[in-house]
């Protein structure tokens, strides 16, 4: 804990925290958007139908074919 405390106290300007937070979020969000764009369409269709087709017992194995 002391180690963390000392290194944090060595941070020159506290502003770095807000910039760091924005950068982390930006990278995360870009990666997420990229994944959502390239994701398999069949998978999306199957996923969105889970609540509607939950009573059809054959459905759950179809993903694993």
């Amino acid at each position: 804990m002391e180690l963390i405390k000392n290194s944090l106290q060595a941070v020159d300007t506290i502003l770095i925290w807000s910039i760091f937070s924005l950068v982390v979020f930006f990278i995360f969000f870009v990666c997420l958007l990229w994944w959502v764009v390239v994701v398999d369409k069949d998978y999306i269709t199957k996923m969105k139908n889970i609540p509607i087709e939950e009573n059809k017992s054959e459905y759950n194995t179809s993903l694993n074919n």
Partner: protein
Amino acid sequence: MEIEKFSYDNKIVKAFIIAAVIFGLVGMLVGLTIALQLVYPILNFDLQYTTFGRIRPLHTNAVIFAFVGNAIFASVYYSLQRLLKTRMFNDNLSWIHFWGWQLIILAAAITLPLGITTSKEYAELEWPIDISIALIWVVFGINMIGTILKRRERHLYVAIWFYIATFVTVAVLHIVNSFEMPVTFLKSYSWYAGVQDALVQWWYGHNAVAFFLTTPYLGMMYYFLPKAANRPVYSYRLSIVHFWSLIFIYIWAGPHHLLYSTLPDWAQSLGVVFSVMLIAPSWGGMLNGLLTLRGAWDRVREEPVLKFMVVAVTAYGMATLEGPLLSLKNVNAIAHFTDWIVAHVHVGGLGWNGFLTFGIFYWVVPRMWGTKLFSNRLANLHFWLGTLGIIFYALPMYVSGVLQSLMWKEFDAQGFLVYKIFLETTVQVLPLHLIRAIGGTLYLVGVIIMTYNLIKTAYAGKFIPDEAAEAAPLEKVYKAKTGGWHHQVLESKPILFTVVALVSILIGGIVELVPTFLISSNVPTISSVKPYTPLEIQGRDIYIREGCVSCHSQLIRPFRSETERYGEYSKSGEFVYDHPFLWGSKRTGPDLHRIGAKYSDTWHFNHLYNPDVASPGTIMPSYPWLFEQHIDKSLTAGKIKALRTVGVPYEEGYENVANDDLDKQASAIAGRLKEDKIDASPDLEVIALIAYLQRLGTDIKVEKTASTQN
């Protein structure tokens, strides 16, 4: 592949629904009572157990944790089993969860009117109850994760992600915010002090809204709205972006509750930026919900379930646009501490949480009892009463909020405050408060009608305790279809998913909280600020017990309108010994941070006994019991020791002589009262409260006097 037969547990869902309806009625009735108390103070009945300050937290806890909490559990237990094609992990755990939660509610219902409270909003319950909440929450988590592990559906539908995020985040929030030092079995002091306590509390408070009132309900929306509309969610891609960006951003936004406070500027700015960014995922979710109904809007006209859900999702959209706007500093300067905030939370609470719950109950109950809804006409009546109730609640409160702010800030041509006496601004908005109470009544009548309708529905059908189902088991070895590391992989590994969700919310929490805790320059100390005297500690605890913080802030913002009215604006260093902080979030009465030495002891004495005599027309209740009950001096030593443990610099051994100092200070106050021909025993609770009030905000005056003399 062989098909397995099993059954869904409807009994536990039924129990949670019944609890939600009962506590919904009780919580809303208490809400209506406190709304009326603000217009007719006689309804406080001069009884300590029914006074506004004590039962306001009873209302908030009842509607949030009892009504909404039980509704969440009912919906999660219903949808989780069906989405995963399995019965709950363990029936015994389900019932431990149910009864444990109801016992916690019972404990809250007993302790809050008794004045046993930490005073931290939505976290008022004392430490033994806090521990019980943590344990029962873990039981819920084990049951949920266990169910996920024994599932027959490979991938986790988006609703379940929201449930997992809810479980993980509420656990973190509750544990971090509940760090407290016990004094007795039912009394503790927050581990944190002043500005740090405020930051932790509003990091918790804001995210309690996010992860108790929003994420589970989004999960419920993603399951029940497609079910009720009988069509899949509009965009599953959008739901993925919605989920990750929402949980990631929400956790950072807490400091927007502390704008213009003594919180460091960088933390305030961080809160504002992330709050504005929240519009994107929130509206993404709202549009996803509404667009799910594309091509089915004709059914919304006939189907009460869909009507409730449409208004719920729309209210979510309104509240989540308003929230970020309120977090802008210029808007916040107007809205904070006013009725505007009350309107905002009730659009969310009555509209989003209430209406989605009602829609789900109207959909689920007929199915669990194998029948049709008893009366669609009554459901429609409920819908219109509820909608009108929300409008009659919210509109007058918006008007009242803006009016309050304008009056608080209005200067005349000579540069003096037009409404110099705070009470004048309170009295002006009373008619609007009365209309608000009418709105609340309409809403409550709607819920009573729903209760009747659901009971009749249940009697008309036959309850199906165990609903038969069948599905193939999962293959032992699973290969991701597209190969490589993808979101599909994450969804098929629930533990990994939970960890990633936890890391997402922890990043925000750590970046936000850690610097304030570890870098001392964030809380500048003021040498003249000294710890409270033993009598003041006792008085402060009475202030906490009576819930004074419900109506009085202790935070003067750096605006001319506030410094003119109250005095010097508040500094971080003034709160370093405040365990807990008592900044408050609403000004029904004036700010009290500089009340010390402003009035005489006699004025406070008379004012607390009969506020109407000291301030004619006031809506503040009387506190006659403070003039009968005696200060519990047996607790003084324990309080000193506990406060020393959390960092207040009382000398070692001071607890042994603390009561001598207490007696001396109390006698001095009693002596001053005697000069005004008031005979009061120095042991009375009111003496301690007067001591505390007279101390408030005076420490920096000492410094000023000293520097003037130099």
